[in-house]
């Protein structure tokens, strides 16, 4: 399992939402958005369990023919977490359940997933990348919470 955290300065991406938002992988572009191919099914599965929406309606999908599960790029702003402090925990639970259901009866895949956190009052984004099995998703949750509490302290 591997978790990497990096900061991205993206002044042009001034966006906030009180929901979890599925971003296109090229969200810093102005047009031609492309989403991971898992996006639509994940959205349909999770919309009753989680406050989630698309950044834009997906029209083009990036299909990776690897056995790894490339999850959608998920965005959480600090204002969303103010509204619902349990959001990260719910989101990680939904991801775990979705992957379990999707790969029911098969070997559980390696998960590759990125979560972007934005401190609402700044242009700084933090990207948390996860690669590993289902069992490591609680560590992803911990890492996101660490990033969030650090952002809150820096504020």
């Amino acid at each position, binding site marked *: 399992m591997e978790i990497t955290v990096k900061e991205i300065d993206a002044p042009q991406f001034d966006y906030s939402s009180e929901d979890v938002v599925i971003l296109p992988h090229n969200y810093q572009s102005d047009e031609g958005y*492309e989403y991971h191919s898992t996006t*639509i099914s994940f959205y349909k599965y999770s919309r009753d369990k989680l406050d989630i929406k698309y950044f834009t309606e997906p029209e083009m*999908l990036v299909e990776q023919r690897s056995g790894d599960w490339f999850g959608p790029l998920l965005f959480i702003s600090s204002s969303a977490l103010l509204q619902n402090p349990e959001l990260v925990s719910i989101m990680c639970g939904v991801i775990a359940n979705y992957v379990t259901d999707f790969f029911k009866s098969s070997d559980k895949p390696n998960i590759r997933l990125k979560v972007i956190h934005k401190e609402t009052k700044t242009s700084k984004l933090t990207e948390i990348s996860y690669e590993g099995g289902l069992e490591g998703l609680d560590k992803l949750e911990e890492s996101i919470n660490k990033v969030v509490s650090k952002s809150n302290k820096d504020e």
Partner: protein
Amino acid sequence: MNEKRVSYDEIHEAYCEFIDSCGKFSFYTRSIETQRQKVAECDNYLVAIKQYKSQAIEKNNEPVANQFFHMQCMIHALRSSLLMWIELKECSFENAWTHLVDAQEYTAIALRLNDYEGVRNLEARLKGAEQSLFPGWKIYNSPGFVETVGKCSVCHAPFSECDHVENEIYMGSLCQRIDRNIVRVDHFAFVENPRDRRCIITKTSDDDGNEIDYFTWEKTGKKVNNEEGHHVEGRMFCIPTLDVL
């Protein structure tokens, strides 16, 4: 003319007997002729099972439609397994590999509905066949491309507009995105764990530039340019052909 009514239990009992009979022909020493005969029987049986499934769908009976879908996948798995042995004995190794992967995928889909000893035994037999017939098969092709969203295989609506989720089973069929158009190929990669294990390497080359068949390790008679590294030829993408509707 009186039509004979058959109960689900009777259909299931006959199906179990048929499945057992297929297993008796699914190994190397059975003759190609008897294996072909069994494949033909599977084809006929699939027609019958799909008719029963249609009746369940007409009655809006999803649990029974799904049970017939399970039977459909199991018969397909055994049919693909028989075809694998036939192709092996005819030295069509690429096709044998494809039938093995088909059999494994049908078994995995069948397991989504019912998990019991018989399916797990078939799964283990197929894994055993893979390990003994194609040992050390480690590199596969994994392309990445940009594509349109497509339609839902269950309801045929644009996939963004319906509620169906990929890989779930609805009223006796597996939900998939269909009618997708590839608009750009992004990359090709060699991976150990591909989405589609049919995407294999089929040819390579030796140090002297002789093209080598990856299955038989025989020279094909063709000379290739090795100046920029070893020549590799393979299947980059296979159009899905599993009968899961």
